[in-house]
């Protein structure tokens, strides 16, 4: 492809003796949204951190605009913006202070910084909460703050690691909307997710990570037609059954089972509390 911005060629990554990725090849087109999808523990976050030059591959190379990443790390860091699953900001700083702090670390001058922070806070819908400490924000606001922190220096590539994890459907929609908005300004977006519906809605291109390797890499529609499937869920079930493994959903559920259980319990407790309160109001 001519519009390839980032290329991974034969990339292998090990942590000690544990190999996480094996000879990965991946192309990320410029100005598009590329999704990396796979079950938990497959190495999705590792790919993102390698693209952002945080980890170095043990083997193979990563190219940005056909230039090796490691040759120009300082400038590369200005090109990439990153938002990780758990968020990466100071809980004891306000929204504005967090943005100012990271902007200065990117070398943005004070005059530009204030203007950019104000625009960005409006952009992610956090302007009214600009003086609120990050720890006091809701989960959805925290996600938006994290994306804003990663976007404060106007990177060419925004890397998002599971941006909608742990969010309810409404908040998820907000984040998806925000990602699309960012992409509409020409920013290349690379993100990971376990949610197939989300990937289908959001991605221009999809890479499927399975067993340390990228097994599929193409536009969503092309992948679906290749597997003669209506949606990505069917695609995954076919891939997984072919490989003799549990369905994707089952595999994913293993990780989230406990979380769901907790959520269920909380919902049940909330129901009981609500019923009790209603009764009391009735009395």
């Amino acid at each position, binding site marked *: 492809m001519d519009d390839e911005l980032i290329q991974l060629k034969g990339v292998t990554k090990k942590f000690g003796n544990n190999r996480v990725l094996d000879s990965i090849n991946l192309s990320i087109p410029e100005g598009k949204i590329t999704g990396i999808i796979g079950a938990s523990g497959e190495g999705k976050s590792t790919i993102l951190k390698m693209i952002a030059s*945080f980890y170095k591959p043990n083997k193979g190379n990563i190219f940005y605009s056909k230039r090796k990443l490691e040759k120009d790390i300082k400038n590369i860091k200005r090109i990439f913006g990153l938002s990780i699953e*758990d968020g*990466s*900001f100071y809980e004891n*700083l306000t929204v504005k202070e967090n943005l100012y702090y990271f902007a200065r*670390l990117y070398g943005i001058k004070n005059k530009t910084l204030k203007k950019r922070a104000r625009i960005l806070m409006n952009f992610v819908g956090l302007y009214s909460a600009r003086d609120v*400490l990050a720890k006091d924000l809701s989960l959805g606001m925290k996600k938006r703050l994290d994306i804003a922190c990663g976007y404060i220096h106007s990177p060419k590539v925004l890397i998002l690691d599971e941006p909608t994890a742990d969010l309810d459907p409404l908040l998820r929609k907000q984040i998806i909307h925000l990602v699309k908005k960012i992409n509409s300004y020409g920013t290349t977006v690379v993100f990971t997710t376990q949610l197939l519906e989300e990937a289908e809605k959001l991605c221009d291109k999809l890479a499927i990570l399975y067993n340390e390797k990228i097994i599929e890499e193409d536009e969503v529609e092309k992948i679906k037609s290749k597997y003669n499937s209506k949606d990505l869920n069917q695609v995954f079930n076919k891939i997984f059954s072919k490989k003799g493994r549990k369905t994707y959903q089952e595999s994913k559920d293993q990780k989230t089972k406990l979380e769901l259980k907790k959520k269920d319990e909380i919902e049940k407790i909330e129901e009981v509390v609500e019923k009790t309160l209603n009764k009391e109001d009735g009395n």
Partner: protein
Amino acid sequence: MGIRSIFNIIKKDFKIFGRSKISAILVLIIPLVVTLLAGMAFNSSNISDVTISTYSDSYTNLTEEILLDFEKNYTILRSNSVEECIDSVKLTNSQICIVFPNDLSSEGSEEDVVFHIDYSRINLAYNLLHEIEGKIDREASDLGAVLVQNLIDSLNKIDEGLVEGVESLENIEGGLDSGIDEVRGIDISLDEIDDAISLLEDARTTANDSSAISKIDSSIEVLKELKETSTSNSQSIEKIVEMNEGLSEDIVSLLTNLEGILEELNNEDTLEAKSIVSPIDIKIESIKIDLNNREYLLPTILSILVLFGGILLSSTFVLKEKKTKAYFRNFMTPTKDVVFILGTYFTCLLIILIQFLLVFVGVRYILDLNFVLMPLELLVVLLLSASVFIFLGMFIGYIFKSEETTIFTAVLTSAVLMLFSNAIIPIEHITGKLKDIAMFNPSVLTDISFKKILLFNFSFDAFLTEIYALSGFIVFFFILTYISRRMNKRNL
């Protein structure tokens, strides 16, 4: 970008530090409180509230006198046995056990006064031993002085007798001299006999009368017999003279010696009992006068504060930073590792400087300690020592993964550095090569420099070695911190 980023990091650190208000107040106030408490607690130049346990089979008058003197300063606890006396020290009911012999008197004693000291409380033990031993020494000296005075009185009497003896000897010597002269006078009459014999012999040659010759011959015979007898007597007299002369010389020599002894006995300097008992007078003067324990302790307290403050503060800062969600993002920015290290370093340094500013204000206005402050020297040593401990703490903060290990190592490192400094036991007690190493303990270097500045007002020349050594440590620990931060990144 570097300086601006460092300022940015410091600003962020202070905002976060300030938002945890109670922690911030405690961090700033605790050093002041510690110094003030220490200053109030050690506001004397003596050891106070000391209990002495004693035992004696029989307390003599002298023992009672000594104990009466002790009671002015200490609490006396009389034990029923030596074991009980020693046990009271072990159980910390008393600080020293003294066993007095049962025959302690002004005439002395065959047994010793025995001290039982708990050397595990090493500083107290030596101080107390020095003080109690000094008191008993003074008592013993007083007793010795009385005994020596008696001896001197006896010598004075002998002196008087000797003066009389010298006079008698001088009389004897005079009598002997005249006797010798008289005996030597007898010697002259022998020549006269010879003259008479030769005159008679001349007369015999000219005499014609046989009866006259016969009378002359018999006279000559008589004279010769007289001469022989006189010669024999003369020889005896010569011997007597020689003996008398020898005796006279001995008497003169004896007189000279006696006069010398008298002269020495009459010398007032050597006849003072005190100067005989303690011929060498010792006067102990403090190098720095008018200071008490708290002033002497202040440099050590300050060096402990900078040691613990530096290591614990910086390791906690790094630990907290590592635990924040933002730690990862910091690595993603183009800001260099050195900038982050310096940012945290300057934050800790500023906090320590504020702590010390509060401490010095407290010391000056609350404890009213009037040190002639040498601000430049003090600031340089404070900056250098704080830098060493901050970088050491940061290194500990970066190198360990878990919170527990980091805190444990930081506390342990501070404790070890304090143990091998002058704070608990003087480093002179350390043996072998460990002592040489301990001399370069940053805590010791800090303590020595603070003492030179605060107690003796020395300028830079006096602690150049310490400055160079501390600077070396800064470089060393900075490199370690840098490496450990880089290693830490790999573990994210």
